[in-house]
């Protein structure tokens, strides 16, 4: 490639997604010429170049809506071409690496494609680039913000802005954040921003028994395995044109990660025991409180799926970083309980100060439970002027060895720990599992075992 191969079409409006102006940067001319023809057939205006230098020149001279760029070019890395004030970019690479992906997603990258590409992938990436186009209707923050998404902090405003920008697209989104920060609310808000009547289908990947994951997600045909007495439509099919929210994506078994990746890349799926390809029309939003990059390096999470999900990452800040939001949230929960249970609807200033000064490692969920306990504790009073004992200290179960003694079996120690933790969280199994660092499924299994032992 010795220079720019211009489009034969006139320049198109950058606001029309049907006629995006694209610069394709790759030194393989067989690939670029075929891709150019394919995308032109889809009414896109495509120019091609083969080097970083040629691409830099083209970007200086002309305005492009988006850039498809190979990472490995004869005179350098395609990453050099991705600028904050440049066109949106899609990275193309032969072999994914964490370093390049992480560096890339920090720029204006809307997608990350691994060779060999196919036409549908390219088209979906072009659609992804429409996220911040002016012609795209971005709903007002008030219109998409759920009533229970409370907060006026800078972190919260930034989060709401991301929801307004990313929501009305069908791009895969990964929500990260500590446990209890409200990632599920963010997912729901992203779905609401689509202004659609289609379903929002949440699924907790950690709560599905391993052997049933594929059937739950993708469905199964009658007789496909023992117990499959009838055809079952999976979550992805049920969410037709809507959103599948894969909570705790880090808990998805490795073999099912492969299947999910295939679905994301091909846009179609096959029911367990079936042969027919079924189009996947739902948008995927995933969430995790795990450090997925670390999980990848430890071989617990697939690198290629990680890249796929990282197309548009959204981080939900912990409560301790949301300055000014604690009183707003605390008052919101208190008023809610007052309406439901007739408890006090106001805090004394001293109590509010105490709540504000605590660092809330369990985030909003912990605050909510503390407010509930405080509301009940102060029932019959005008105001909440006392908080539960030790609310701001490490939980009793964490450092209390009562009930444990030398000579106990590991199994009994585990049982005691689970029961104490469950008691601490007022029987809330999800919180208990999170605190213990086990999946909800494991917790249920243990509780069933204890129940069987008891009987």
């Amino acid at each position, binding site marked *: 490639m010795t220079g720019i191969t211009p489009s034969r079409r006139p320049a198109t409006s950058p606001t029309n997604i049907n006629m995006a102006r694209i610069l394709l940067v790759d030194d*393989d001319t*067989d*690939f670029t010429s*075929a*891709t150019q*023809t*394919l995308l032109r*057939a889809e009414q896109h205006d495509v120019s091609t170049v083969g080097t970083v230098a040629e691409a830099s020149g083209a970007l200086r001279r002309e305005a492009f809506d988006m850039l498809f760029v190979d990472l*490995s070019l004869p005179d350098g890395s395609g990453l050099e071409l991705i600028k904050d004030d440049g066109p949106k970019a899609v990275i193309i690479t*032969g*072999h*994914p690496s964490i370093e390049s992906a992480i560096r890339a997603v920090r720029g204006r990258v809307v997608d990350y494609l*691994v*060779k*060999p*590409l*196919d*036409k549908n992938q390219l088209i979906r990436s072009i659609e992804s680039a429409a996220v911040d186009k002016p012609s795209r209707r971005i709903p007002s923050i008030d219109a998409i913000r759920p009533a229970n998404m409370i907060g006026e902090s800078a972190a919260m405003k930034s989060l709401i802005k991301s929801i307004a920008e990313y929501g009305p697209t069908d791009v895969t989104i990964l929500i990260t954040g500590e446990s209890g920060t409200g990632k599920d609310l963010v997912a729901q808000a992203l779905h609401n921003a689509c202004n659609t009547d289609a379903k929002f289908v949440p699924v907790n990947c950690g709560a599905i028994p391993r052997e049933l994951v594929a059937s739950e997600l993708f469905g199964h045909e009658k007789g496909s395995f023992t117990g499959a007495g009838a055809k079952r439509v999976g979550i992805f099919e049920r969410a037709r044109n809507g959103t599948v929210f894969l909570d705790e994506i880090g808990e998805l078994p490795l073999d099912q990660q492969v299947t999910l990746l295939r679905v994301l890349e091909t846009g179609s799926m096959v029911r367990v025991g079936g042969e027919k390809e079924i189009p996947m029309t739902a948008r995927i939003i995933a969430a995790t409180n795990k450090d997925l990059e670390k999980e990848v390096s430890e071989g617990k999470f697939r*690198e290629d799926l990680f890249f796929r999900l990282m197309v548009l990452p959204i981080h939900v800040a912990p409560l301790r970083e949301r300055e000014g939001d604690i009183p707003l949230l605390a008052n919101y929960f208190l008023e809610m309980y007052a309406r439901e249970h007739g408890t006090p609807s106001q805090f004394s200033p001293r109590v509010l100060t105490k709540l504000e000064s605590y660092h809330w490692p369990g985030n909003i969920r912990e605050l909510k439970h503390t407010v509930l306990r405080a509301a009940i504790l102060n029932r019959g009073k005008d105001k909440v002027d006392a908080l539960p004992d030790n609310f701001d200290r490490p939980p009793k179960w964490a450092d209390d060895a009562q009930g444990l003694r030398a000579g106990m079996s590991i199994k009994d120690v585990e049982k005691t720990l689970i029961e104490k933790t469950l008691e601490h969280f007022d029987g809330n199994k999800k919180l208990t599992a999170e605190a213990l660092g086990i999946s909800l499924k494991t917790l249920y299994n243990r509780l069933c075992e204890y129940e069987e032992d008891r009987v």
Partner: protein
Amino acid sequence: MPLSESEKGQLKEALHKMNNALNSISMQAELAKMYAEQNNNAMIGEALGIIMSQCRQCSAITQSTHALLLEG
């Protein structure tokens, strides 16, 4: 006998080239499939679909081999 760093580098380069070739074949097949569909030639379209699918499988092999080299 374990591979030397130089040999690993050569293998990685070969895999990279192979993957680029697969990408090119796959995209040319996409293009041909589009032409086949425009001419209502479903059989050729189907055959090209198989070529594309096989390219993806070959590419998966090059990628896993590449990953093995990185680990080893």
